[in-house]
Protein backbone atom coordinates (compact mmCIF):
# COMPACT_ATOMS: atom_id res chain seq x y z
CA UNK A 1 0.00 0.00 0.00
CA UNK A 2 2.68 2.51 1.01
CA UNK A 3 5.02 1.50 -1.78
CA UNK A 4 2.13 1.94 -4.20
CA UNK A 5 1.50 5.42 -2.82
CA UNK A 6 5.18 6.35 -3.03
CA UNK A 7 5.33 5.02 -6.57
CA UNK A 8 2.32 7.12 -7.47
CA UNK A 9 3.77 10.25 -5.93
CA UNK A 10 7.15 9.65 -7.55
CA UNK A 11 5.56 9.33 -10.95
CA UNK A 12 3.33 12.35 -10.39
CA UNK A 13 6.28 14.54 -9.49
CA UNK A 14 8.41 12.98 -12.22
CA UNK A 15 5.82 13.49 -14.93
CA UNK A 16 5.06 17.07 -13.97
CA UNK A 17 8.77 17.86 -13.78
CA UNK A 18 9.38 16.18 -17.13
CA UNK A 19 6.50 18.03 -18.78
CA UNK A 20 7.49 21.39 -17.33
CA UNK A 21 11.16 20.95 -18.12
CA UNK A 22 10.37 19.95 -21.67
CA UNK A 23 7.94 22.81 -22.12
CA UNK A 24 10.57 25.26 -20.91
CA UNK A 25 13.47 23.86 -22.86
CA UNK A 26 11.56 23.17 -26.06
CA UNK A 27 11.09 26.92 -26.31
CA UNK A 28 14.86 27.18 -26.22
CA UNK A 29 15.17 24.37 -28.81
CA UNK A 30 12.59 26.10 -30.96
CA UNK A 31 14.34 29.45 -30.83
CA UNK A 32 17.78 27.96 -31.39
CA UNK A 33 16.42 25.82 -34.22
CA UNK A 34 14.65 28.75 -35.82
CA UNK A 35 17.80 30.81 -35.57
CA UNK A 36 20.05 28.21 -37.15
CA UNK A 37 17.60 27.49 -39.96
CA UNK A 38 17.85 31.19 -40.72
CA UNK A 39 21.61 31.18 -40.13
CA UNK A 40 21.44 33.25 -36.97
CA UNK A 41 22.73 32.29 -33.52
CA UNK A 42 19.58 32.70 -31.45
CA UNK A 43 19.51 33.16 -27.67
CA UNK A 44 23.08 33.46 -26.42
CA UNK A 45 23.19 36.21 -23.82
CA UNK A 46 21.46 34.59 -20.85
CA UNK A 47 23.76 31.87 -19.63
CA UNK A 48 26.02 29.72 -21.82
CA UNK A 49 24.37 29.17 -25.21
CA UNK A 50 21.36 31.03 -23.85
CA UNK A 51 20.51 28.03 -21.69
CA UNK A 52 19.08 30.15 -18.89
CA UNK A 53 16.74 31.93 -21.28
CA UNK A 54 13.71 29.74 -20.37
CA UNK A 55 14.16 30.67 -16.72
CA UNK A 56 14.29 34.35 -17.60
CA UNK A 57 11.20 33.93 -19.79
CA UNK A 58 9.41 32.12 -16.99
CA UNK A 59 10.29 34.79 -14.44
CA UNK A 60 9.06 37.44 -16.83
CA UNK A 61 5.77 35.66 -17.53
CA UNK A 62 5.15 35.09 -13.83
CA UNK A 63 5.85 38.67 -12.90
CA UNK A 64 3.36 39.98 -15.44
CA UNK A 65 -0.15 40.95 -14.41
CA UNK A 66 -2.77 38.32 -15.13
CA UNK A 67 -5.21 40.62 -16.81
CA UNK A 68 -8.83 39.50 -17.01
CA UNK A 69 -10.65 41.83 -19.39
CA UNK A 70 -14.24 43.00 -18.91
CA UNK A 71 -16.90 40.90 -20.53
CA UNK A 72 -15.07 37.58 -20.39
CA UNK A 73 -16.60 34.49 -18.90
CA UNK A 74 -14.53 34.41 -15.70
CA UNK A 75 -14.77 30.66 -15.12
CA UNK A 76 -14.12 29.46 -18.67
CA UNK A 77 -11.39 32.04 -19.12
CA UNK A 78 -9.48 30.71 -16.12
CA UNK A 79 -10.15 27.02 -16.70
CA UNK A 80 -9.19 26.95 -20.38
CA UNK A 81 -5.37 27.07 -20.02
CA UNK A 82 -5.53 24.21 -17.54
CA UNK A 83 -7.75 22.24 -19.88
CA UNK A 84 -4.98 22.42 -22.45
CA UNK A 85 -2.16 21.57 -20.06
CA UNK A 86 -3.68 18.95 -17.74
CA UNK A 87 -4.79 16.38 -20.39
CA UNK A 88 -1.36 16.55 -21.94
CA UNK A 89 0.24 15.83 -18.59
CA UNK A 90 -2.33 13.07 -17.96
CA UNK A 91 -1.36 11.39 -21.21
CA UNK A 92 2.16 10.91 -19.86
CA UNK A 93 0.72 8.42 -17.38
CA UNK A 94 0.57 5.65 -19.92
CA UNK A 95 3.59 6.47 -22.09
CA UNK A 96 6.20 3.73 -21.61
CA UNK A 97 9.52 5.52 -21.34
CA UNK A 98 11.36 2.31 -20.63
CA UNK A 99 10.58 -1.36 -20.23
CA UNK A 100 9.48 -0.88 -16.61
CA UNK A 101 9.23 2.89 -16.66
CA UNK A 102 5.61 3.84 -17.05
CA UNK A 103 3.36 5.30 -14.41
CA UNK A 104 0.54 2.96 -15.32
CA UNK A 105 0.62 0.17 -17.83
CA UNK A 106 -2.96 0.51 -19.01
CA UNK A 107 -4.39 -2.03 -21.46
CA UNK A 108 -6.27 0.69 -23.30
CA UNK A 109 -3.35 3.12 -23.18
CA UNK A 110 -3.65 4.17 -26.79
CA UNK A 111 -7.35 4.91 -26.39
CA UNK A 112 -6.64 6.91 -23.27
CA UNK A 113 -4.04 9.07 -24.99
CA UNK A 114 -6.43 9.79 -27.84
CA UNK A 115 -9.27 10.54 -25.45
CA UNK A 116 -7.18 13.06 -23.53
CA UNK A 117 -5.71 14.50 -26.71
CA UNK A 118 -9.12 15.74 -27.81
CA UNK A 119 -9.76 17.63 -24.55
CA UNK A 120 -6.95 20.00 -25.52
CA UNK A 121 -9.10 21.31 -28.38
CA UNK A 122 -12.06 21.72 -26.08
CA UNK A 123 -9.88 23.86 -23.86
CA UNK A 124 -8.94 26.08 -26.78
CA UNK A 125 -12.60 26.38 -27.78
CA UNK A 126 -13.78 27.30 -24.29
CA UNK A 127 -10.93 29.73 -23.75
CA UNK A 128 -11.63 31.45 -27.05
CA UNK A 129 -15.36 31.58 -26.42
CA UNK A 130 -14.85 32.78 -22.87
CA UNK A 131 -12.52 35.60 -23.86
CA UNK A 132 -15.29 37.24 -25.94
CA UNK A 133 -12.92 38.28 -28.67
CA UNK A 134 -13.76 38.01 -32.35
CA UNK A 135 -10.30 36.82 -33.36
CA UNK A 136 -10.34 34.21 -30.66
CA UNK A 137 -13.74 32.94 -31.78
CA UNK A 138 -12.63 32.70 -35.40
CA UNK A 139 -9.56 30.81 -34.24
CA UNK A 140 -11.74 28.50 -32.15
CA UNK A 141 -13.98 27.71 -35.14
CA UNK A 142 -10.89 26.94 -37.19
CA UNK A 143 -9.33 24.76 -34.53
CA UNK A 144 -12.49 22.72 -34.13
CA UNK A 145 -12.98 22.07 -37.83
CA UNK A 146 -9.28 21.33 -38.21
CA UNK A 147 -9.35 18.96 -35.30
CA UNK A 148 -12.39 17.08 -36.59
CA UNK A 149 -10.75 16.79 -39.97
CA UNK A 150 -7.43 15.55 -38.63
CA UNK A 151 -8.63 13.32 -35.80
CA UNK A 152 -10.21 10.95 -38.33
CA UNK A 153 -7.09 10.04 -40.33
CA UNK A 154 -5.09 9.86 -37.12
CA UNK A 155 -7.48 7.37 -35.60
CA UNK A 156 -7.76 5.42 -38.85
CA UNK A 157 -4.00 4.91 -39.04
CA UNK A 158 -3.93 4.03 -35.35
CA UNK A 159 -6.73 1.48 -35.88
CA UNK A 160 -4.79 -0.13 -38.71
CA UNK A 161 -1.83 -0.38 -36.37
CA UNK A 162 -3.93 -1.86 -33.58
CA UNK A 163 -5.37 -4.43 -36.01
CA UNK A 164 -1.89 -5.50 -37.02
CA UNK A 165 -0.39 -5.63 -33.52
CA UNK A 166 -3.54 -6.82 -31.76
CA UNK A 167 -2.99 -4.61 -28.73
CA UNK A 168 -3.80 -1.16 -27.39
CA UNK A 169 -1.33 -1.48 -24.56
CA UNK A 170 1.50 0.88 -25.43
CA UNK A 171 4.16 -1.06 -23.55
CA UNK A 172 3.14 -4.29 -25.23
CA UNK A 173 3.18 -2.54 -28.57
CA UNK A 174 6.79 -1.55 -27.93
CA UNK A 175 7.67 -5.08 -26.76
CA UNK A 176 6.42 -6.45 -30.06
CA UNK A 177 8.93 -4.28 -31.90
CA UNK A 178 12.06 -5.71 -30.27
CA UNK A 179 15.18 -7.07 -31.97
CA UNK A 180 16.58 -4.37 -34.21
CA UNK A 181 15.23 -1.55 -36.28
CA UNK A 182 13.82 -3.88 -38.95
CA UNK A 183 11.30 -5.03 -36.34
CA UNK A 184 9.96 -1.54 -35.79
CA UNK A 185 6.36 -1.12 -36.93
CA UNK A 186 7.45 1.35 -39.56
CA UNK A 187 9.36 -1.37 -41.42
CA UNK A 188 8.06 -4.61 -39.93
CA UNK A 189 4.41 -3.98 -40.73
CA UNK A 190 5.40 -3.15 -44.29
CA UNK A 191 6.01 -6.89 -44.73
CA UNK A 192 3.56 -8.43 -42.33
CA UNK A 193 0.57 -6.12 -42.22
CA UNK A 194 0.42 -3.52 -44.93
CA UNK A 195 2.87 -2.30 -47.53
CA UNK A 196 1.37 1.15 -46.96
CA UNK A 197 2.82 1.45 -43.45
CA UNK A 198 5.44 4.09 -44.32
CA UNK A 199 2.65 6.15 -45.82
CA UNK A 200 0.58 5.55 -42.70
CA UNK A 201 3.56 6.85 -40.72
CA UNK A 202 3.62 10.03 -42.81
CA UNK A 203 -0.12 10.46 -42.33
CA UNK A 204 0.19 9.92 -38.60
CA UNK A 205 3.02 12.42 -38.38
CA UNK A 206 1.10 15.02 -40.40
CA UNK A 207 -2.03 14.62 -38.32
CA UNK A 208 0.09 14.76 -35.18
CA UNK A 209 1.34 18.18 -36.30
CA UNK A 210 -2.22 19.28 -36.96
CA UNK A 211 -3.49 17.93 -33.63
CA UNK A 212 -0.85 19.81 -31.70
CA UNK A 213 -1.60 22.97 -33.69
CA UNK A 214 1.92 23.27 -34.95
CA UNK A 215 3.03 25.18 -38.02
CA UNK A 216 2.18 24.79 -40.84
CA UNK A 217 -1.17 23.95 -39.23
CA UNK A 218 -1.14 26.56 -36.47
CA UNK A 219 -4.60 27.91 -37.15
CA UNK A 220 -5.19 28.44 -33.43
CA UNK A 221 -2.54 31.10 -33.29
CA UNK A 222 -2.19 32.43 -36.86
CA UNK A 223 -0.61 35.64 -35.60
CA UNK A 224 -0.49 37.28 -39.01
CA UNK A 225 -4.26 37.06 -39.44
CA UNK A 226 -5.79 36.65 -36.01
CA UNK A 227 -3.51 38.65 -33.70
CA UNK A 228 -2.83 35.61 -31.49
CA UNK A 229 -5.95 33.56 -32.20
CA UNK A 230 -7.19 31.78 -29.13
CA UNK A 231 -4.56 33.40 -26.91
CA UNK A 232 -5.39 37.00 -27.83
CA UNK A 233 -6.80 38.01 -24.44
CA UNK A 234 -4.38 36.01 -22.34
CA UNK A 235 -1.46 37.61 -20.59
CA UNK A 236 1.20 36.56 -18.16
CA UNK A 237 0.99 33.02 -16.83
CA UNK A 238 -2.42 32.40 -18.46
CA UNK A 239 -0.63 32.53 -21.77
CA UNK A 240 2.31 30.76 -20.21
CA UNK A 241 0.18 27.77 -19.26
CA UNK A 242 -1.31 27.62 -22.76
CA UNK A 243 2.20 27.66 -24.09
CA UNK A 244 3.33 24.90 -21.76
CA UNK A 245 0.30 22.87 -22.78
CA UNK A 246 1.16 23.28 -26.42
CA UNK A 247 4.70 22.05 -25.87
CA UNK A 248 3.57 19.22 -23.61
CA UNK A 249 1.24 18.18 -26.43
CA UNK A 250 4.14 18.16 -28.85
CA UNK A 251 6.09 15.92 -26.49
CA UNK A 252 3.08 13.59 -26.23
CA UNK A 253 2.69 13.53 -30.01
CA UNK A 254 6.37 12.78 -30.52
CA UNK A 255 6.33 10.13 -27.77
CA UNK A 256 3.28 8.47 -29.33
CA UNK A 257 4.87 8.45 -32.78
CA UNK A 258 7.97 6.88 -31.24
CA UNK A 259 5.94 4.22 -29.44
CA UNK A 260 3.71 3.35 -32.37
CA UNK A 261 6.14 3.38 -35.26
CA UNK A 262 9.73 3.64 -34.07
CA UNK A 263 9.97 0.94 -31.45
CA UNK A 264 9.84 3.06 -28.27
CA UNK A 265 12.59 2.03 -25.88
CA UNK A 266 13.85 -0.79 -28.11
CA UNK A 267 17.39 -0.37 -29.32
CA UNK A 268 17.88 -0.11 -33.10
CA UNK A 269 20.45 -2.91 -33.16
CA UNK A 270 19.92 -6.24 -31.35
CA UNK A 271 23.28 -6.30 -29.56
CA UNK A 272 22.72 -2.92 -27.90
CA UNK A 273 20.78 -2.88 -24.62
CA UNK A 274 17.25 -1.51 -24.59
CA UNK A 275 16.90 1.59 -22.52
CA UNK A 276 15.03 4.77 -21.90
CA UNK A 277 17.84 6.59 -23.70
CA UNK A 278 16.67 5.19 -27.03
CA UNK A 279 13.16 6.37 -26.33
CA UNK A 280 14.33 9.89 -25.55
CA UNK A 281 16.64 9.97 -28.54
CA UNK A 282 13.90 8.96 -30.94
CA UNK A 283 11.47 11.34 -29.31
CA UNK A 284 13.81 14.29 -29.60
CA UNK A 285 14.61 13.47 -33.21
CA UNK A 286 10.87 13.65 -33.90
CA UNK A 287 10.61 16.90 -31.96
CA UNK A 288 13.52 18.33 -33.91
CA UNK A 289 11.73 17.36 -37.11
CA UNK A 290 8.66 19.20 -35.86
CA UNK A 291 10.75 22.32 -35.32
CA UNK A 292 12.43 21.76 -38.68
CA UNK A 293 9.04 21.61 -40.40
CA UNK A 294 7.84 24.72 -38.65
CA UNK A 295 10.73 26.76 -39.96
CA UNK A 296 10.52 25.31 -43.46
CA UNK A 297 6.91 25.62 -44.51
CA UNK A 298 4.61 28.64 -44.45
CA UNK A 299 1.21 28.37 -42.79
CA UNK A 300 -1.27 26.70 -45.13
CA UNK A 301 -4.43 28.39 -46.19
CA UNK A 302 -7.37 27.16 -44.17
CA UNK A 303 -9.22 25.68 -47.17
CA UNK A 304 -6.09 23.93 -48.33
CA UNK A 305 -5.76 22.53 -44.85
CA UNK A 306 -9.23 20.99 -44.89
CA UNK A 307 -8.79 19.81 -48.47
CA UNK A 308 -5.60 18.03 -47.50
CA UNK A 309 -7.39 16.13 -44.79
CA UNK A 310 -10.71 15.30 -46.50
CA UNK A 311 -9.37 14.69 -50.00
CA UNK A 312 -5.99 13.14 -49.30
CA UNK A 313 -5.34 11.94 -45.77
CA UNK A 314 -8.73 10.38 -45.03
CA UNK A 315 -9.07 8.44 -48.33
CA UNK A 316 -5.51 7.16 -48.09
CA UNK A 317 -5.82 6.15 -44.47
CA UNK A 318 -9.07 4.34 -45.33
CA UNK A 319 -7.26 2.50 -48.11
CA UNK A 320 -4.50 1.70 -45.64
CA UNK A 321 -7.07 0.29 -43.23
CA UNK A 322 -8.62 -1.93 -45.92
CA UNK A 323 -5.25 -3.09 -47.22
CA UNK A 324 -4.17 -3.93 -43.67
CA UNK A 325 -7.35 -5.91 -43.09
CA UNK A 326 -6.92 -7.76 -46.37
CA UNK A 327 -3.24 -8.45 -45.73
CA UNK A 328 -3.94 -9.86 -42.28
CA UNK A 329 -6.71 -12.04 -43.67
CA UNK A 330 -4.65 -13.41 -46.57
CA UNK A 331 -1.29 -14.00 -44.83
Amino acid at each position, binding site marked *: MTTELIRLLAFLVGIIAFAALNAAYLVWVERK*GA*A*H*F*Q*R*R*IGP*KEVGPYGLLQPLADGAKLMSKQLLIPDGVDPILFKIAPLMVLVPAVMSFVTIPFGEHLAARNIDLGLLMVFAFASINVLGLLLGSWGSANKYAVIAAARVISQNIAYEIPMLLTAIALVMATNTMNLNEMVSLQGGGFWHWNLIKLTFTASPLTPIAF*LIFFTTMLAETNRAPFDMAEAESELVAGSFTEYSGMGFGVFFMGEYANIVIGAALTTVLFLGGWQSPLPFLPNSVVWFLMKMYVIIFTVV*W*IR*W*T*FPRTQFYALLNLSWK*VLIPISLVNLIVTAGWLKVF
Partner: protein
Amino acid sequence: MAYFNELYSGTKSLFIGMGITIKEFFKPVVTLQYPHESLTMTARFRGHIELVRDLESGGNKCIVCGMCQKACPSGCITGNGEKREGVKGKVLTEYTLDFTKCSLCGMCVESCKPAAIQFSKDYNLAGPSREAYIYDLLKRLEEQK
Protein backbone atom coordinates in the same frame (compact mmCIF):
# COMPACT_ATOMS: atom_id res chain seq x y z
CA MET B 1 -4.15 9.60 -62.14
CA ALA B 2 -3.66 13.35 -62.03
CA TYR B 3 -4.58 13.10 -58.34
CA PHE B 4 -1.71 10.73 -57.63
CA ASN B 5 0.72 12.76 -59.73
CA GLU B 6 -0.16 15.87 -57.78
CA LEU B 7 0.18 13.99 -54.53
CA TYR B 8 3.57 12.62 -55.53
CA SER B 9 4.97 15.93 -56.75
CA GLY B 10 3.52 17.74 -53.74
CA THR B 11 5.07 15.34 -51.25
CA LYS B 12 8.35 15.40 -53.13
CA SER B 13 8.45 19.20 -53.05
CA LEU B 14 7.97 19.13 -49.27
CA PHE B 15 10.98 16.88 -48.86
CA ILE B 16 13.04 19.06 -51.21
CA GLY B 17 12.13 22.09 -49.10
CA MET B 18 13.16 20.32 -45.93
CA GLY B 19 16.42 19.30 -47.59
CA ILE B 20 17.19 22.93 -48.33
CA THR B 21 16.49 24.14 -44.83
CA ILE B 22 18.54 21.39 -43.18
CA LYS B 23 21.48 22.32 -45.38
CA GLU B 24 21.15 25.92 -44.20
CA PHE B 25 20.96 24.67 -40.61
CA PHE B 26 24.50 23.32 -40.73
CA LYS B 27 26.01 26.29 -42.53
CA PRO B 28 27.87 28.86 -40.44
CA VAL B 29 25.88 31.77 -39.06
CA VAL B 30 26.05 35.00 -40.99
CA THR B 31 24.80 37.51 -38.44
CA LEU B 32 27.13 39.98 -36.77
CA GLN B 33 26.74 40.11 -32.99
CA TYR B 34 26.47 43.87 -33.04
CA PRO B 35 27.27 45.32 -29.65
CA HIS B 36 30.08 42.78 -29.20
CA GLU B 37 31.52 43.11 -32.67
CA SER B 38 31.06 45.68 -35.41
CA LEU B 39 31.90 45.98 -39.07
CA THR B 40 35.00 47.76 -40.31
CA MET B 41 33.78 50.46 -42.66
CA THR B 42 34.90 50.57 -46.26
CA ALA B 43 37.61 52.98 -47.47
CA ARG B 44 35.15 55.48 -48.91
CA PHE B 45 32.77 55.53 -45.96
CA ARG B 46 31.95 59.05 -44.79
CA GLY B 47 31.65 59.52 -41.05
CA HIS B 48 32.01 62.89 -39.42
CA ILE B 49 35.38 64.56 -40.13
CA GLU B 50 38.42 64.19 -37.90
CA LEU B 51 41.86 65.69 -37.79
CA VAL B 52 44.64 63.68 -39.40
CA ARG B 53 47.55 62.85 -37.17
CA ASP B 54 50.89 64.15 -38.32
CA LEU B 55 53.18 61.16 -38.03
CA GLU B 56 56.32 63.29 -37.67
CA SER B 57 55.22 65.58 -34.85
CA GLY B 58 52.44 63.47 -33.43
CA GLY B 59 50.07 66.43 -33.51
CA ASN B 60 47.78 67.69 -36.24
CA LYS B 61 48.63 68.90 -39.72
CA CYS B 62 46.41 71.96 -39.65
CA ILE B 63 47.90 75.30 -40.75
CA VAL B 64 44.86 77.30 -39.59
CA CYS B 65 44.16 78.69 -43.04
CA GLY B 66 40.40 78.62 -42.44
CA MET B 67 39.56 77.16 -45.85
CA CYS B 68 37.39 74.39 -44.42
CA GLN B 69 35.45 76.90 -42.38
CA LYS B 70 34.76 78.92 -45.52
CA ALA B 71 34.01 75.87 -47.66
CA CYS B 72 31.41 74.45 -45.29
CA PRO B 73 27.94 75.25 -46.67
CA SER B 74 26.30 74.71 -43.30
CA GLY B 75 28.85 76.47 -41.15
CA CYS B 76 29.58 73.49 -38.97
CA ILE B 77 33.25 74.15 -38.44
CA THR B 78 34.79 76.58 -36.00
CA GLY B 79 38.56 76.79 -35.99
CA ASN B 80 40.99 79.04 -34.22
CA GLY B 81 44.75 79.38 -34.00
CA GLU B 82 47.44 81.48 -32.47
CA LYS B 83 51.00 82.49 -33.11
CA ARG B 84 53.50 80.89 -30.82
CA GLU B 85 57.14 81.68 -30.07
CA GLY B 86 59.55 79.52 -32.02
CA VAL B 87 56.91 77.77 -34.09
CA LYS B 88 56.58 78.42 -37.79
CA GLY B 89 53.09 79.38 -38.83
CA LYS B 90 49.98 79.26 -36.66
CA VAL B 91 49.12 76.60 -34.11
CA LEU B 92 45.60 75.22 -33.94
CA THR B 93 43.97 75.95 -30.60
CA GLU B 94 40.36 75.10 -31.31
CA TYR B 95 38.60 72.94 -33.86
CA THR B 96 34.89 72.27 -33.25
CA LEU B 97 32.51 70.42 -35.51
CA ASP B 98 28.76 70.83 -35.09
CA PHE B 99 27.73 67.43 -36.46
CA THR B 100 24.00 68.19 -36.03
CA LYS B 101 24.21 70.43 -39.08
CA CYS B 102 26.77 68.49 -41.14
CA SER B 103 25.50 66.86 -44.31
CA LEU B 104 28.75 64.96 -44.98
CA CYS B 105 29.22 66.76 -48.31
CA GLY B 106 33.00 66.65 -47.98
CA MET B 107 33.70 70.20 -49.16
CA CYS B 108 35.93 70.75 -46.14
CA VAL B 109 38.01 67.66 -46.84
CA GLU B 110 38.31 68.68 -50.46
CA SER B 111 39.33 72.24 -49.66
CA CYS B 112 42.02 71.29 -47.17
CA LYS B 113 45.43 71.88 -48.79
CA PRO B 114 47.63 70.11 -46.21
CA ALA B 115 45.11 67.21 -46.03
CA ALA B 116 44.70 67.79 -42.34
CA ILE B 117 41.12 66.49 -42.11
CA GLN B 118 39.55 63.26 -43.27
CA PHE B 119 36.34 61.31 -42.86
CA SER B 120 36.32 59.16 -39.75
CA LYS B 121 34.88 55.64 -39.72
CA ASP B 122 32.60 56.22 -36.75
CA TYR B 123 29.08 55.11 -37.54
CA ASN B 124 27.53 53.75 -34.36
CA LEU B 125 26.68 57.08 -32.82
CA ALA B 126 24.07 57.71 -30.18
CA GLY B 127 23.84 60.43 -27.60
CA PRO B 128 21.53 61.73 -24.92
CA SER B 129 21.52 65.34 -26.08
CA ARG B 130 22.13 67.63 -29.00
CA GLU B 131 25.33 68.84 -27.38
CA ALA B 132 26.80 65.34 -27.62
CA TYR B 133 27.21 65.95 -31.35
CA ILE B 134 29.28 69.10 -31.10
CA TYR B 135 32.70 67.55 -31.30
CA ASP B 136 35.93 69.05 -30.12
CA LEU B 137 38.10 67.41 -32.76
CA LEU B 138 41.36 68.63 -31.30
CA LYS B 139 40.57 66.99 -27.99
CA ARG B 140 39.43 63.86 -29.86
CA LEU B 141 42.79 63.64 -31.64
CA GLU B 142 44.64 63.93 -28.35
CA GLU B 143 42.46 61.30 -26.72
CA GLN B 144 43.10 58.88 -29.55
CA LYS B 145 46.81 58.66 -28.75
